[in-house]
Every structure is written in C-alpha cells, then in structure tokens.
C-alpha cells in the first residue's frame, strides 16, 4: 500500500505539494518565533522592539504571532481540497477494487502528510532566515537603555536615543533560542496535524465507496459562530475590567474565541449573502455565483474567513490609533511603529487570504468543467463566467470585511469612549471619527482590490475549463 502511495505522490501535481510544504514551513517558523519570544528573560540581552522587549507586552506579541498561523491554516485547508474531484474518484475506485477503509485513510494521510512533514522540517530554516532579517542586536545589559517605562514621559534629550534604539525592526530574539527538543516538538506537532488532516480529508469516502452523492441538498449552515464571538467578547470585557495579571490570559482567550467565531460564522455569512443575491438578481453572472455559493458555502466561507478577522483588527486598531494620536500631546514612535507593524501584518494576511480565495476559485473551476463548458456551448459568454467567479469571492468577502471593520470599530469605540477620562474638543472628536471612517474605507477598499487581482489571476484558466473537449461523453 505504501508503494501505491508513493506512486500517487509522485504523479500528483507538484504545485499542490509545494504549496503545502511552503505554507507549513512558514507556519512552523512563526510558531518558533512565538516560542522564542516567550523564552526571553525579563531583561533581554539584546535590543528589541518594545513590543517584544517589554515583559508585559511580550505575551500579547507572542500570541499575535501565533494567531498569524490561522490564516495560513485556512490556506492549507484550501490547498488540501485542491483536486478533490479527481482524488475522490481515484479513492472511490480503490475502494471498489477492494481497498479497506484503513488503507484509504493511510493513502490520504501520506498524500498530505508527506509534503506537510517536509515543510515542517524546513520550518527551522525559515525561522533562521527570519531571524537574520528581523533579529535583535546584542547589547550590553548594563547599558540599561532598552527598557522603557511607558507611563513616564521621557525628557526630550533622551527621547532621540531611546527612540532610535527601540525603533529598530528587531522583532525576533537572537539571544535565546528554543531548545532542540522544543523545536522537534513543534515540528512534530505540525507534521502530525498535517497527517491527521490528510486522513480526515478522505473520511467520507471511507464510509461509502461510491463517493459523495449530489442528489440531496446540503443542510444550511447555522450561525453557531455567534456564540463563540459572544463568549469571546464577554471574556475580553472581563479581562478589561478585572485584575491585570489574570486579565491578560483571559483577554487572549477572548480574542482567540472571537477569531474562531468569525471563522465558524463565515460559511453562514456566505450562505445568507448568496441566498439574498439569488433571490433579487436579474444578472446571470450573479445568479451563477450565488447559486454555487448557496450549494456549498463551507469551503468558500472558510477561504474568506480571515477577511473578517482583518476587518475586526483594523477597526479596533483604527479606534486605538485615534486614541493614541489624536488625544495625546506626544506621539511616541513606539506606537507609530507598532501600528505600522499591525498594518503590515494585516496586509500580509490579506495577501494570503486573497490567494486562498484564488485557490478555491481555481479548484471549483476544475470541479465544474463540464457544466461550465455546457453553459458556453449554450451561448453564455466567457466574460459572464469570469464575472461570476469574481462575484462569488466578493459575495463572501465583502460582508465579512464590512461587518468586521464596523464591529471592530464600534465595539472598540464604545469601550474607548466609556473608558476615556476626558472628552476632547468637537474638532478633535470629528477628526477622530473621520479618521476611523477613512481607515474603514481603506481596509474594505484594499480587500476589494486584493481579491479582484487574485481572481483575475485565475480567470485565464476559464478558457481551458470551458473548451468543448470537456463536453465529451465517451
């Protein structure tokens, strides 16, 4: 059976394996970065950016770094789904030929597990690369200038030196490293997760050798994600009001719950968005897009889910930025850099998510080749199908993006106003509001542009998918 697995592996298209390995390597590296941050002593022996240097902020930064792994996981999930139709046919044929469920599971495990293991083992290499690019510089601990007390406004002559030292993009500790067993544990964990995903991906085939039947409608997704989001928000409220020490863990748990809730909610958002569009539209491209979305909202929703998280973070950040920059006399470069870092991370996550949507679109093209070719044969212009592809991605993403930013901005705004000890002038308040609106618009706008470009890259495959050769009955 393993020999068969190797044959399949070699014949499988390399892009899928390469994508799996690459993103797994990146995810492993990020986990190692987070781990390294946590290993720092309270007085690090190097110059690092305050987000990492400060023991109080360190946990949050490590947590945020670990959270960056989530959009990568969503991308990996989408890549695993690539070529589903062919794989299902192949596995179903094997089952019919007498392979046992255990053997089929093992095949699936190897097909995904192998590239993922290779990627996980390459993780430490990527980690080393990141370290050379973003590593901290060793500094004599006795110099004592790399710890900053944020509650004190530094005298102006110290500001310059301190600013420079703490403004370097030194994010990843170089003075400490994870122990060998810790690295091995992370790599092994990631690899094991990959193998399990692979064996799970074929589990419905294990049940029935005839494969998935499309005769029945899938049950509509329910908004259970709201529960998670609600619980998360509640946890965050508790953290804000409670004691500082315990509050941090609860806060992180709350954020995690909210993000997971958004991911769980995404299929429901996709479904409702598609339903609404299908009911009211006269445009054939929208009809085709909405119909496809409604019939299988899960994968489409998950592909776009991170957009919601991007929105929320951006909305919250917008309010925080207003609070920091508009309501204080002194603009600490620390905040500028921090928010810039957050913005940079958001853009990277956006790129990953747009790519995930593109992969999803490419996969659905291959899946529906015959139907699309028949549509073209019946007189549907290819441009309409291209619009449908784009619209499907937008129908999922735009509600998530707009909803996310609004929720983030409103909730943070309410909290901010409630916690504020003084109200600014009307001019400042209006300026702040405008700024938040501006950032909201920019976030949604960038999301729109990124997705348009990503789907545009997939569109050329339409011609291939709709060629008359796909109409063959023989």
């Amino acid at each position, binding site marked *: 059976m393993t020999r068969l697995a190797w044959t399949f592996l070699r014949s499988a298209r390399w892009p899928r394996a390469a994508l799996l390995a690459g993103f797994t390597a990146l995810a492993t590296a990020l986990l190692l970065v987070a781990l390294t941050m946590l290993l720092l002593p309270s007085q690090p022996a190097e110059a690092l950016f305050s987000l990492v240097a400060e023991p109080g902020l360190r946990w949050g930064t490590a947590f945020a770094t670990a959270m960056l792994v989530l959009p990568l996981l969503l991308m990996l999930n989408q890549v695993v789904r690539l070529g589903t139709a062919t794989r299902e046919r192949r596995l179903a044929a094997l089952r019919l030929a007498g392979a046992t469920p255990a053997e089929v599971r093992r095949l699936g495990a190897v097909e995904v597990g192998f590239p993922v293991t290779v990627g996980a083992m390459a993780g430490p290499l990527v980690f080393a690369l990141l370290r050379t690019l973003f590593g901290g510089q060793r500094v004599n601990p006795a110099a004592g200038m790399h710890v900053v007390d944020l509650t004190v406004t530094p005298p102006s002559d110290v500001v310059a030196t301190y600013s420079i030292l703490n403004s370097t993009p030194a994010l990843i500790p170089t003075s400490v490293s994870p122990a060998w067993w810790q690295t091995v544990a992370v790599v092994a964990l990631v690899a094991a997760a990959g193998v399990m995903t692979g064996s799970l991906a074929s589990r419905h085939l294990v049940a029935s050798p005839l494969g998935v039947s*499309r*005769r*029945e*409608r899938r049950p509509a997704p329910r908004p259970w994600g709201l529960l998670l989001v609600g619980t998360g928000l509640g946890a965050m409220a508790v953290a804000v009001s409670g004691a500082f020490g315990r509050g941090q863990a609860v806060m992180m748990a709350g954020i995690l719950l909210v993000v997971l809730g958004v991911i769980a909610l995404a299929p429901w958002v996709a479904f409702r968005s598609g339903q609404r569009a*299908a009911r009211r*539209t*006269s*445009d*054939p491209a929208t*009809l*085709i897009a909405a*119909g*496809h979305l*409604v*019939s*299988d909202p899960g994968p489409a929703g998950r592909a776009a889910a991170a957009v919601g998280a991007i929105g929320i973070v951006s909305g919250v950040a917008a309010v925080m930025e207003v609070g920091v920059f508009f309501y204080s006399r002194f603009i600490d470069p620390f905040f500028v850099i921090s928010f810039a870092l957050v913005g940079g991370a958001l853009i990277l996550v956006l790129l990953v998510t747009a790519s995930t949507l593109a992969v999803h679109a490419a996969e659905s093209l291959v899946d529906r080749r*015959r*139907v699309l070719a*028949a*549509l*073209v*044969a*019946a*007189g*549907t*212009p*290819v*441009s*309409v199908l291209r619009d449908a592809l784009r619209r499907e991605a937008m129908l999922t993403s735009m509600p998530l993006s707009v909803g996310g930013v609004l929720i983030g901005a409103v909730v943070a705004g309410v909290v901010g106003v409630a916690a504020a000890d003084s109200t600014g002038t009307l001019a400042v308040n209006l300026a702040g509001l405008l700024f938040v609106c501006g950032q909201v618009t920019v976030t949604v706008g960038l999301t729109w542009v990124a997705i348009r470009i990503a789907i545009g890259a997939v569109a050329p495959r339409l011609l291939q998918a709709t060629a*008359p*050769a796909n*109409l*063959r*009955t*023989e």
Partner: protein
Amino acid sequence: MTEVILSTRAVEKSFGRTQALRGVSLELARGEVLAVTGPSGGGKSTLLHCLSGILRPEAGEVRYGGQRVDDLAEAPRTRLRRREFGIVLQFGQLVPELTVEQNVALPLLLEGHDRSAARTAARAWLDRLDVGKLAEALPGELSGGEAQRAALARALVTGPQVVFADEPTGALDTVGGEALLDVLLSTTRERGASVVLVTHDNRVAAHADREVVLVDGAFTAAGVRS
C-alpha cells in the same frame, strides 16, 4: 421548404495530429431534421460543434442564413448561439446549483430580460414539456428523462431556428428516449425549426428526414430522402 438555413463547405478541423473533419460539406434546409450517424470517434460531435459555432474550423466555411459565421469573433458567435441555436447534450448540462427554472431562464437573463419575465417564460416552457412541477427542484433530484426535458426547455427558450442534439437519448432507456424524441421533434416542427441530430442509434436516426453517415471525418453514403 428547400430554403437552406445552415450550410458548410469543405470544413476541416484537427486536434493536434488527429484530423477530426476532412473536408465536410452539407446543407440543412429550414424545418429539416437531419441525422448525423457513424461510429464513435468519427467526428460527429466535432461537426456539430463546428456547425453551431462552438468551434472554428481550420479550413472551409460555415454559413447561417447565407452569412459566414465561422470567421466571427467569440462574442458575436456566442450571441448567435444563444439566440438562434439551441443545444441539447447527452447529460450534465444543467447547472447543479440552480433550480430547474433558474437554469431554463438563464439564456433569457443573458439576453437582458428581467427576472420576472424570464421566470414566466421558463415556467411556460417547462409546463409545455410536462415538467412544470419540477421548476423548484435541483437538477440532481431529477430522473434522466426529466433532466433532458429541462435541458430541452433551456434550448428552446430563446426561440432558436436550429436545434442541435448530441446523443440526447443516449443516457435514457428505449421508452424514455422515444418520448424525448417525440417531444423534441414535435416542438421544433411546430416552430418550423431545423434539427441536427447526432446519434449512433439507428432507431433515433430513423426519426429524421435525412441521414448522413460520418466515418473518420468524411461522409460516406448520403441517406435516402423520404
């Protein structure tokens, strides 16, 4: 009755090194039912694709209503196909995520009609073909014969002058196939439309006014005109 509505002259089409059509010329009269028969791989489907503008031949010409159509760009060819031609395949041509009614209404929506007008026309055609009660069902829930009737409705909804059918009864049993052929020919005869029927089943071919046999990309014997 002898007005030629669709014709080809010396059409050639190759795929890589295989030549699918080697100089095919034929004429289709208005209202005529033409059967294209022959063994598998003989080029019948390719001929149908060239006739209907799905494929462009490498040599020769295809004329519809006297005008050349094989040298049109993709957009006008697609428009022509949508308005003047109807296509029915053997299976798998309906969009599985849309209801039967939405599927049938799609060509009208592409023509720019609004949703309610398109839905009404679609519903009318479904009723005419005795599958009106399945309008809200998904294609996956239909039997073979019902799905083919829905596909036929979609092909007829824009009022085509020529209906192309590629093995329409191939996936159906004898009785179901007979019923589908009957309704296909009666609806097209009513409107004076022509039919090009690609099939390898002699019984199906016998329903046509005329038969041409395509073997290895060229015609052998032309059939008897009755």
